[in-house]
Every structure is written in C-alpha cells, then in structure tokens.
C-alpha cells in the first residue's frame, strides 16, 4: 500500500457509496483525493445489501465495480482500516491526523487466498452478517471486499501461529503497531453513512431479546446468496419461515424515543424484502404493518403496487407489543386502523423491525462542523446547497446529512464533489501562483 503523502486536494471520510462517488467525481476532475475508511474494506452498507429497490438489481453488482474504480483510480489514494482523529483548519485548508490500525499482515504481500482464515481455529460472530454468521479471528472481510486482504482481530486471537504456518507468501506481520500519520488537504467531504436505531430501543418489540425479531440489515444478509445461512431461515432454529411480519416505523416518527423524523427508506426496503421473500419461499405469507406507505421516489409507487399485486399483505395499523410464544413464534398485538377500534393478536414465525436511520459518526472533537438537532450534519442552506456545512471547506454527502436512499446519496455525493471543487478553485484563484489549491490562502480571506 502506498504511503500517505504530505498533501492532497481533498479528503473524503467514508468509503461507502456516497464517499466513493464523491471521490470519483473529484478524481475525474483531476483532483488528488485521499479516501479514508475505518473498516478493512470499502463498500459501506450497500455492498452488504441483497438487492436495490425498485429495480431489484443485485446491490453488490452495482457497488463492486464502483469499489474497484475507486480503488484503482490514479487520482484516488485509498486508505482502509484508518480512522480520522482530528481535522484542524490551517488557512483555507486542513491538517488531518489519521490513525492507521494494524492488520498484522504486509498488505503488499497478501494475495487474499484465505489460507490463514481456514487455518485459524477460532470462530467469532461476523459483523458483516450482523452476528448471524461466523468469521475467523483472522479473516478476509467478505467475498467482495476491496482490498482483498486479511485482517487479524487481536481480541479474538489465541496466538497459536497457525495462520503464519499456512500463509503461502509469509506475509503475517505480528509486530505491526498502530501508526499516527499527518497530512494536509484543501477540502473535506464527510460521507460517514448510517447506523440503525438500536434493536432494543422499542423494548416492547423484543428486539435483541427474541431471536426471531430481526433487524432489516440482518434480513438483507439472510436473503443474500452469500449470506450467513445460504438461504432464508429463522435464526432461532433454522426453520424455513412460513409467515413473516414487517413492523414499520419501529424507531422512526416516534417522539417517545427522540426520533421524530421519517427515515425515508424503511417503507421501500420492507416492501422489497417482503416481495423477495414471496419469490424465495413458495407459499410464504408476508404482512407489513404500517402507518403510511411513503413511496416517494421514481418508480416507488409502482413498486408498492407490484408488491401488493404479488401477494404482500399490507395492514394499516400500529403494532403495540410483540411477545414470544411457544416454538419461539411471535404474537403481535395490533390495532388495525380501519375505523372499528378493535385490537387483534396475530401470530407470525419471524418479525423484521423496520428500524430508522441514525448518523454513524459524530464530528464533535474531531471536526468543527455543527450537527443539527437530529444528530445529522447541519446544512444551513439545505434547499439550495445541500452539501454545504457550517464549516468552510467541509462538505457532506449521503446519510451523514440526513436519511436518504441510494440514488439520492449518489446525487448528493456529486453535489458535494462539485462544491468541494468550486471551493478548491476559489482558493486557487485567491492564492495566485501557489502550487496547490489552498496554499497561501488564509482563512480570513475566505468568505
């Protein structure tokens, strides 16, 4: 892997779809970009999804070429398994402090053969599969990971040395240490993505307590061909589910848990998963309990009608409580909003909570851009300049700015790249003969 240089035009924080797109859009304009990702692979959430709505195209088939393009672009330097510790203003640019975490392998030598992983005797829950599947203490992050390099999880290593014995190019390096690196950039794009509202937030739904109450991202992995089970099964006992429920707004539009906003994607991902379950398991019953169906994007209303047409049941009603009954089935207490005012109990063998979205990263103490009340980045001119933050030269893309779907995240990444390019050109003009975009420009001249 190339050494981190002293200067880049731009830093992109986050190697998900929005970060990759922003980096590519800057790179294509000739700017030197440092793309930093905290995980061992780029790809973010999207590379773990099964299909995308409303087209039902394979998600990784769309994401993986983007990953390869970003990784091999001559103007983009990819730095995985690295955290941004501090972004400090220096004139019109920034000084960046990074922490490179050790993989305990020589990346130039590792060919991603996986022999070390097969030799390792310790199985641990795999984060990529939301704990439903296993990985080893040394592992290749996933089948589509870029870079395809092993990483040793020190906290689960029993120090047996079997990985070293089996590694054909002998590239294990147990003596690596975390390394702090400093660089300078002219502009910053934050594309740090999302996390889901924690499973136990709505405790009345039993998330985190009942094994058959699942998160939607775990269901994405279960539905994926390279998922933890290889097919759709219940996590509690491996049963092929026959009757699945989706509970909408399970962590969004709910002031009682401090998340009043709509997460914008839950209706569509639930409909997509529900329809795919109908395709994957013959005769399965899938019911979606909802407050409103928000199918606002291009082709989304048609997709909703298709899902209903293909047998997904939609029930307008609020789920009050979920209890676990015999055989680890689940009993839902539902009030259908059909004007009759009755409460029903309906039994299902698997429930997916359509959890809302939260920002995955907070800038406090690292970066001087402000957060809005909801915890996402504050974009004061969201209507006309959606990627501009409260910090000059810092731009935001994707879900870091607020919940959105993949097409919107990609569009916003393009906007962030253009705004960053405009900022770099503006500083270059001000700097006159300076050799880099921001060199020689003091922050006070930037208005």
């Amino acid at each position: 892997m190339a050494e981190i240089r002293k200067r880049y035009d731009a830093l992109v924080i986050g190697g998900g779809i929005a970060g990759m797109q922003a980096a590519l859009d800057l790179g294509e304009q000739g700017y030197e970009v440092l793309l930093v990702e905290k995980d061992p692979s780029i790809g973010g959430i999207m590379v773990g999804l099964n299909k995308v709505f409303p087209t039902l195209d394979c998600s990784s088939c769309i994401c993986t070429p983007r990953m390869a393009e970003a990784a091999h672009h001559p103007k983009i330097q990819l730095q995985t398994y690295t955290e941004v510790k501090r972004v400090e203003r220096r004139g019109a640019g920034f000084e960046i402090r990074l922490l490179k975490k050790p993989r305990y392998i020589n990346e130039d030598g590792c060919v991603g053969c996986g022999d070390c992983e097969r030799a390792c005797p310790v199985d641990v829950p795999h984060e990529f599969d939301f704990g439903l599947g296993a990985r080893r203490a040394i592992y290749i992050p996933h089948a589509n990971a870029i870079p395809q390099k092993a990483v040793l999880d020190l906290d689960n290593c029993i120090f047996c040395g079997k990985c070293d014995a089996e590694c054909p190019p002998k590239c294990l390096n147990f003596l690596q240490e975390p390394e702090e690196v400093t660089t300078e950039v002219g502009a910053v794009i934050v594309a740090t993505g999302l996390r889901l509202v924690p499973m136990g937030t709505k405790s009345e739904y039993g998330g985190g307590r009942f094994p058959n109450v699942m998160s939607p991202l775990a269901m994405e992995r279960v539905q994926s061909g390279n998922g933890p089970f290889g097919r759709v099964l219940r996590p509690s006992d491996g049963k092929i589910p026959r009757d699945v429920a989706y509970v909408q707004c399970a962590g969004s539009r709910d002031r009682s848990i401090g998340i009043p906003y709509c997460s914008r994607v839950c209706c569509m991902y639930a409909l997509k998963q529900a329809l795919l379950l109908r395709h994957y398991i013959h005769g399965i019953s899938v019911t979606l309990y909802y407050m409103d169906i928000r199918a606002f994007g291009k082709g989304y209303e048609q997709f909703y009608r298709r899902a209903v047409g293909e047998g997904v049941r939609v029930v307008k009603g609020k789920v009050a409580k979920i209890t676990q009954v015999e055989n680890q089935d689940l009993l839902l207490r539902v009030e259908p909003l059909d004007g009759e005012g009755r409460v029903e109990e309906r039994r299902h063998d698997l429930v997916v909570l359509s959890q809302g979205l939260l920002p995955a990263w907070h800038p406090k103490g690292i970066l001087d851009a402000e957060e809005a009340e909801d915890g996402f980045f504050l974009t004061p001119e969201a209507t006309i300049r959606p990627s501009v933050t409260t910090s000059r030269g810092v731009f935001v893309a994707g879900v870091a700015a607020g919940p959105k779907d993949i097409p919107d995240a990609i569009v916003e990444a393009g906007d962030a790249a253009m705004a960053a390019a405009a900022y770099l050109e503006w500083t270059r003009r001000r700097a006159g003969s300076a050799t880099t975009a921001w060199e020689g420009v003091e922050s006070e001249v930037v208005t």
Partner: protein
Amino acid sequence: MTATERPEARPKEKRPWLILRDRHGGMSAQLKEYFKEQQRIRKLMKEALKGEPRTIPQLATACKLDSSVVVWHVMAMRRYGLISEGAEQNGYLLYALKEAPKEPS
C-alpha cells in the same frame, strides 16, 4: 575454533505471534473460556452427526443445547466446509458431516 569446540548455543528466537501475545497482555480469560466452549460444542455436534444427518432441532436435542446456539455453530461449520446441507424435512433442513478431504496422492 577446533573441532572439539562447540559454538555457544544461540538463544532460541521467540516466535513473532508470541511477542504479540506478550505485548497484548496475553489471551483474556473470557476468550479462553469462549474457545473452550466452542471446542466442547463442536465435539458434541460432530458426535451427534456421526450416525445420520439431522435438523437443527434434532441436533439441539441430541446435544442438549439451545437451538439458536446450534444454528450459529452449524452455519459456522457449513461456511468452513465441515458440514453440508441436505434435503428438507418438515420445514427444516438436514445437515450432515462432510467427509474429510483426502490428501492428494
């Protein structure tokens, strides 16, 4: 040096993963317990699967383990080629031990 003189025995070089272990403060007690339990469960499951393929509830009963624990171990063993998936039986899949691959001659 004459033929009868022997060079001083070189101190044995410490294996690099053991240097890392020392730097890391050794293996945690929690990990030791976790690994021991993993080995115990795998042994039970392999024994239970020796005779015939079983579903996860059947394996859970045979091994006296919670079925969700068995699911996780079956899927881990499946991923690393120790178990294969078979036909469906009453809404569950059958799992069988794979034969150990023969060494190439």
